[in-house]
């Protein structure tokens, strides 16, 4: 039977097992929306701005591990989504974006709502495809899902002209996709792995540095077994939080600009650094020249060869899927009669415990104003560490990363690479859509939340009982902190005058609003909010205006050159 391109697009989604898509209609995608209307398998979530459609699909993918899908119209629909696409790209999130395009004959004519979508998105997608013939549509969508979800994942965009969505052809969904130019690595090279084991066995001050790649390849169990077998200290990057249980004694916290003292000191002073699915990002390593001053052997396991020796020269590169490589290493370790240097390792742990005793995350628990750290700490206890936490970008993001102890992967959803303010609420929408019965908390600030505040309306329409924890200090906190430290207290445009009354704002969208301005009310308010299982609750915590995130590695400094509280 012949189907229209629009029907084919939706049939393809069904074939891929897609249950939810996030989108916003418009002229070029009307036929696709009509096809959505005439079926019930794929559920469409109508957002209020296309940026949120991309973020929600991204959040959905981060929490489930499945490919997130969004659908936007041509022109402004897709340009609005670009921030969301770039955000997913920077964090290697599998996502498929279906975008409408003007009819093939109108392309290049400056038609109404026409943009060069493939051109605009090219630098921020893993791949993109303009489909000019309806017969190419099903293979293109198959290819998109395949590329998005394999190798180093990433967003793939399929641009569908309006006439392609209207024309008819036979529908055959390809069972497999063969690309002669795309062969993602899986297992590591055995000879290199033998060398890795040798270096590990001779390590005196080892350190495991695990990133988002461990989460993406679902390798948390393998990482945990690997680290425990060796009794090596573990740090998880911002993107890797939850990959190794944060409450485990081998976990030394997050590294980097706002990492713990012990994690950064161990990164700087180790003699063998095992990087696993992490990319030696500037926010982690700090000044690379300072990082090189200490000599250490670096082992780097990553599926993407371009990530290896990009910022930091690596001694032992292992190109492969983190999960497969860790399994190989576990096999070799379990077969080996050797053990790491026990005495040296004992000394190393003593040193790390000394660093840990510095208690770098301490804060004033008896303050008269609400300390933002107290809110996150209480959130952690009230939710028994079981919430899925999304965040926006800024100080609150760092406090959430520092004080909410993630013991499992895919429970911490944030924009690490691009640092996109506004992601928190749409991320929470994506997560809550995927897991209606889970507790989902969005830790945000009064600046970030306003960048996608319109999505409170979406939350009402789809009954998403998200708990918004707004750390309201009336400043763009991270900007203010940099201005205090590095710009002589000149707070240029970082204070937001004329904030809305968030309680009444939440209420006007049909939600529950709460304002909390006393430290003694923090716990009670959180408990009350989380009891309202079927309601979105917006908790506006009036926090200390001048609190800073510590420790801090100033830009351009080395990892061990932290400003401490």
């Amino acid at each position: 039977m012949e189907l229209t391109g629009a029907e084919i697009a939706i049939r393809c989604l069904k074939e891929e097992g897609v249950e939810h898509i996030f989108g916003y209609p418009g002229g070029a995608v009307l036929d696709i929306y009509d096809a959505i209307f005439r079926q019930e398998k794929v559920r469409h979530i109508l957002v209020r701005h296309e940026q949120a459609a991309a973020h929600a699909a991204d959040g959905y993918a981060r929490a489930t591990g499945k490919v997130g899908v969004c659908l936007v119209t041509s022109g402004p629909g897709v340009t609005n989504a670009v921030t969301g696409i770039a955000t997913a790209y920077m964090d290697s999130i599998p996502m498929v974006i279906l975008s409408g395009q003007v009819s093939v004959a109108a392309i290049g004519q400056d038609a109404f709502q026409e943009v060069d979508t493939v051109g605009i998105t090219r630098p921020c997608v893993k791949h993109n495809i303009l489909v000019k013939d309806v017969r190419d549509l099903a293979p293109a969508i198959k290819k998109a899902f395949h590329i998005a979800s394999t190798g180093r994942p990433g967003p793939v965009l399929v641009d569908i002209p309006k006439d392609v969505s209207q024309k008819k052809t036979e529908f055959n969904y390809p069972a497999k996709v063969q690309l002669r130019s795309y062969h993602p690595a899986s297992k590591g090279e055995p000879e290199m792995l033998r060398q890795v084991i040798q270096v590990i066995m001779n390590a005196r001050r080892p350190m495991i540095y695990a990133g988002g790649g461990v989460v993406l390849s679902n390798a948390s169990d393998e990482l945990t077994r690997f680290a425990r077998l060796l009794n090596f200290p573990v740090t998880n990057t911002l993107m890797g939080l939850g990959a190794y249980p944060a409450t485990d004694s081998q976990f030394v916290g997050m590294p980097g600009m706002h990492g713990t003292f012990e994690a950064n000191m161990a990164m700087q002073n180790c003699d063998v650094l095992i990087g696993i699915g992490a990319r030696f990002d500037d926010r982690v390593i700090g000044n690379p020249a300072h990082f090189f001053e200490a000599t250490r052997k670096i082992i780097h396991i990553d599926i993407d060869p371009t990530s290896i020796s990009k910022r930091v020269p690596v001694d032992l590169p292992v190109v492969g899927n983190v999960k497969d490589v860790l399994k190989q290493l576990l096999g070799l370790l379990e077969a080996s009669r050797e053990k790491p240097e026990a005495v040296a390792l004992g000394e190393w742990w003593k040193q790390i415990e000394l660093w840990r005793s510095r208690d770098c995350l301490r804060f004033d628990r008896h303050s008269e104003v609400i300390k933002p750290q107290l809110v996150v700490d209480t959130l952690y206890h009230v939710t028994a560490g079981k919430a899925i936490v999304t965040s926006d970008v800024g100080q609150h993001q760092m406090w959430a990363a520092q004080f909410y102890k993630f013991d499992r992967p895919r429970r911490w959803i944030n924009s690490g690479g691009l640092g996109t303010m506004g992601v928190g609420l749409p991320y929470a929408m994506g997560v809550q859509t995927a897991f209606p019965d889970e507790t989902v908390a969005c830790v945000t600030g009064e600046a970030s939340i306003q960048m996608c505040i319109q999505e409170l309306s979406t939350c009402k329409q789809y009954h998403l009982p998200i708990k918004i924890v707004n750390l309201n200090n009336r400043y763009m906190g991270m900007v203010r902190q940099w201005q205090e430290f590095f710009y002589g207290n000149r707070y240029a445009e970082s204070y937001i005058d004329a904030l809305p009354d968030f309680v009444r704002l939440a209420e006007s969208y049909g939600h529950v609003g709460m304002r909390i301005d006393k430290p003694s009310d923090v716990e009670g308010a959180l408990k009350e909010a989380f009891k309202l299982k079927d309601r979105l609750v917006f908790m506006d915590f009036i926090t200390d205006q001048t609190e800073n995130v510590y420790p801090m590695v100033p830009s351009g400094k080395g990892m061990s050159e932290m400003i401490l509280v």
Partner: protein
Amino acid sequence: MNMRHIFSLLMENESGALSRVAGLFSARGYNIESLSVAPTEDPTLSRMTIVTAGSADVIEQILKQLDKLIEVVKVVNLTEGGHIERELMLVKVSTAEGNTEDIARLVSIFRGHVIDVSDETYTIELTGDVAKLDAFLDALDHNLIVETVRTGASGIGRGNRILNP
């Protein structure tokens, strides 16, 4: 130390593939000295030659980044082994001053051809490696050059150094 390198690529002959390669170079701040591309005997494949310069680290990154592009089937750094490079140049020179014999002699020394003649110009065709073409231009009186068109280098491995899909 920035060294000159020649990358040879086989890629899917699809619209947009060229912009993906060009976009990669501009987005990551890599140099392009020249770039030439055309379909091969297999119409589904294009062959591209890119001449670039960079430190060893940058050259390694360029190779890996090119390889990562979905449409790139194979990529090789030709300068790492035996290879041949050729470039085609068309130069239009002025003959208004009656210097045709001098020009013809120079063209002959460089094994070029005069392929078009008008009342006031000769158009010369010359192939060779980049250094040879540069040398020819240096040997010409610069005031005589009306127009220069160069294709950029094309490269191929020597002997059994073959780039197959």
